[in-house]
């Protein structure tokens, strides 16, 4: 009797039992794999038309901190005909056991194997998660390359910032969504549901082809099917063009955006994890997009235009979400929350409203450049976190090149009010290896940090604070990113980057200054992957085969394996990172249209080299980037003080 019952157990029942009886007790942090959190959506598979797994190529605590995941998860699950569950990258201890026991990677909600879902959607947050995408497919027993997938294999789709140039992953992805996922995803899933019904796809339907399905989906605006776009290379290996394989597909796929953030869906009953995750709090999205036009910043171009939510809506969402989660903190998230047109009243009103329940208000990183320290005090009343300040470059000349709107005067204003208000620590962010950078710019970083220490020390002494000043200088490397004015620029060589870091280390002598830097080798690979084309697919595959995964975790990053993979694939290391793309070159991401017109990017690049600043279109006139006209949207400011914040420092 016992035996027969066992025979008929479904795969997900077997997985649940093995997890409970054997595996969970052997892993660190078992709640990474159990699901069952408050507000989890667990739907009946027999009552929905299409099923999707949201795949995050990192561990639970990182995945659960991602706002985009929360939005899409609840948006999809609120539709009665659609279902979404979560699949995250298992940590090494769990992966070893899954491989040993040949257990396929499973979802958190129902423990169903990933391959049982109709659609598996990866979010591509950064290049160093690409090997984890392959590893998860492999753990899910799904063919890595889309050309190897059987007709009824799940559709492997992706979205997120790396969709700005998904070409390196083109071989592995069936489809990529460009732009705001909440616009495209429900539409896409319903098209798939219709196809299932019509042809019996994934249900034994005869002749229910994958090609036909993908062809139908490729006609949805914002959907890019890499296999339908054929790159042509010249004799010297240069890209000569990318053309669609069907006459009814657009030459360029255009991203889709939420036109009205105020009306857009936002989950007010989000998942509440049991274990502590990176961002363990209510996250409110106050605005989307940023138009400060820093020339190195990809988020600043691909998420345009700026769209805000009104204060009334945000306050309502705050109350409901606290009520539904019990969290003790609300984080106001966006690319730059200090830019919200009603930031100060918003913070003040939220703070007052939630004080009794001891709910604190925070900002993901308190960038003091754009707002008064008074405001910082309001935010910090309940939560004491450090202040950060991002001049990005050490001299005014270079700050003008990158269009970072911080003047020397602003900078000292900020420093003065930070220390005279009693803060004793400040973190400064810089980028090295920027176009046109010279030693003078590196010296500028050092002298800036030193002056902050001196000024801070005397200010603290004046107000009677005995604590020593601590300044952290955090230095990252410039990575030329697609769809930005610097997309044509090369990265400086790895040796040069390491020399620059060594130079800074040797120049910073003051014990009160701590220097942090990123591994230059990681930055090099990020540039290589960010600017590359489909020939990198083989490199990612080989790197994964050699054991690369969790490359974004410094303790797991293995440069030698990546280097070996590049060489084995017949590429010259640095071929993409160091390349200077001439203006007339066809870029690997040329066929992906993020609404920004090329003329604007060229003009911005030239203005950069000439050291000419460009204004922020949310305060000044339109700068003609092309986003609003091509996507038929507009900048939408909703805060009650429409940008005229009297306390604003800048």
């Amino acid at each position, binding site marked *: 009797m016992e035996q027969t019952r066992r025979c008929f157990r479904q795969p997900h029942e077997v997985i649940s039992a093995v997890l409970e*009886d*054997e595996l*969970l*007790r*052997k892993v660190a942090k*078992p*709640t990474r794999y*159990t699901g*069952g*959190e*408050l507000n989890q959506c667990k739907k009946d598979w027999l009552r929905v038309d299409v099923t999707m797994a949201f795949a995050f190529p990192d561990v639970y605590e990182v995945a659960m901190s991602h706002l985009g995941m929360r939005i899409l998860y609840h948006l999809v699950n609120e539709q009665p005909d659609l279902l979404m569950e979560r699949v995250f990258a298992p940590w090494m201890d769990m992966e070893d056991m899954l491989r040993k026991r040949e257990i396929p990677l499973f979802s958190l909600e129902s423990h169903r194997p990933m391959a049982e879902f109709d659609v598996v959607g990866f979010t591509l947050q950064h290049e160093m998660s690409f090997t984890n995408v392959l590893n998860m497919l492999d753990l899910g027993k799904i063919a890595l390359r889309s050309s190897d997938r059987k007709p009824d294999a799940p559709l492997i789709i992706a979205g997120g910032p790396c969709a700005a140039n998904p070409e390196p992953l083109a071989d592995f992805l069936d489809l990529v969504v460009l732009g705001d996922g909440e616009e495209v995803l429900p539409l896409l899933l319903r098209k798939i549901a219709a196809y299932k019904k019509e042809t019996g796809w994934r249900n034994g339907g005869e002749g229910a082809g994958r090609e036909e399905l993908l062809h139908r989906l490729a006609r949805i605006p914002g959907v890019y099917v890499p296999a339908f776009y054929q790159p042509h290379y010249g004799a010297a290996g240069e890209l000569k063009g990318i053309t669609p394989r069907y006459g009814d597909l657009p030459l360029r796929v255009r991203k889709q955006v939420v036109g009205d953030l105020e009306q857009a869906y936002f989950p007010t009953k989000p998942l*509440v994890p*049991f*274990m*502590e995750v990176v961002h363990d709090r209510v996250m409110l999205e106050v605005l989307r997009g940023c138009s400060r036009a820093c020339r190195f910043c990809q988020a600043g171009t691909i998420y345009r235009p700026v769209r805000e939510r009104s204060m009334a809506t945000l306050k309502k969402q705050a109350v409901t979400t*606290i*009520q*539904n*989660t*019990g*969290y*003790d903190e609300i984080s106001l998230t966006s690319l730059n929350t200090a830019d919200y047109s009603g930031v100060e009243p918003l913070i003040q009103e939220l703070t007052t409203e939630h004080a*009794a*329940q*001891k*709910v604190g208000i925070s900002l993901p990183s308190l960038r003091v450049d754009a707002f008064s320290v008074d405001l910082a005090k309001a935010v910090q009343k*309940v*939560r*004491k976190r450090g202040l950060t300040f991002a001049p990005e470059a050490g001299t005014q000349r270079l700050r003008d090149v990158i269009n970072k709107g911080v003047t020397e005067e602003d900078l000292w204003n900020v420093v003065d009010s930070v220390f005279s208000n009693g803060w004793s620590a400040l973190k400064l962010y810089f980028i090295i290896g920027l176009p046109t950078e010279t030693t003078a710019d590196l010296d500028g970083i050092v002298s800036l940090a030193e002056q902050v220490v001196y000024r801070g020390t005397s200010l603290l002494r004046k107000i009677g604070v005995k604590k020593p000043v601590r300044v952290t200088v955090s230095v990252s490397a410039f990575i030329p990113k697609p769809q930005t004015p610097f997309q044509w620029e090369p990265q400086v060589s790895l040796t040069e980057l390491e020399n620059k870091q060594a130079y800074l280390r040797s120049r910073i002598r003051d014990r009160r200054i701590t220097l942090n830097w990123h591994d230059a080798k990681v930055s090099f690979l990020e540039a290589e992957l960010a600017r590359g084309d489909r020939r990198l697919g083989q490199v990612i595959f080989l790197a994964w085969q050699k054991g690369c995964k969790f490359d974004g975790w410094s303790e797991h990053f293995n440069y030698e394996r990546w280097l070996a993979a590049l060489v084995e694939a017949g590429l010259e290391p640095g071929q993409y990172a160091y390349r200077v793309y001439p203006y007339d070159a066809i870029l690997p991401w040329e066929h992906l249209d993020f609404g920004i017109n090329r003329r604007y990017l060229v003009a911005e690049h030239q203005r950069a080299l000439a050291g000419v600043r460009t204004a922020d279109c949310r305060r000044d006139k339109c700068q003609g980037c092309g986003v609003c006209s091509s996507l038929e949207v507009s900048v939408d400011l909703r805060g009650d003080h429409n940008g005229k914040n009297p306390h604003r420092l800048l």
Partner: protein
Amino acid sequence: MRWLSHLDTQKAFERTFRRAQIPLKYSEGFNPHPKIAFASALAVGVVSQGEYFDVELAGTPEPAVVAAKLQESLPVGLRVFGAVAVPPGTPALMAVVNRARYRVQVALNGPVTAEQLQTVIRRIWLQDSWLVERVGKRGPIVKDIRPGVFALQGEVDPEFIVLDMLVQTGSAGNVRPEEVVDVLLAADGLPVNRERVDVERLGLFVAQGDRLLSPLAIR
């Protein structure tokens, strides 16, 4: 629920109070936190039939109302059995709870008879010290747990050995149920799968003389 850490459980309750809109008292200082103190930390992986905690509320709501409101807001898998109001100055649960009863299920690799098991239990029960190794802050230390074990019974289910034990817990020291299993295994090479030991906490008690009292009853 069994996979939650002690801290996770504490946080889950803290959030439940906020959802249930039962105002809590907070500690003073920069980072105010609510005052929730469990009688005894539950180890990760252990199922529990009953845990107890002290919590300081703002105001004096009816205990029954608090319990009902909490129950409505709890995540699936947690249940409130009751609440009582205690006057200020009552000693903390942590200080008075001193017994824990566990049911431990150990998977068998081969057959064991009931007599075989009873014989081993009777034999070790008569020993006056059970030495186990613990990892302390300064490396491994050897500890005698025998004085902290007050009852031990066992049964054989065809596929498992099931033990029922009453052990010491609280400020005077904790005996871990797995340690009792290890003593049993060391005494006789029973064919068990040490990797499949499932522990369930049946209850926490206050021992007064010969009597075992519920922590709620003495409050």
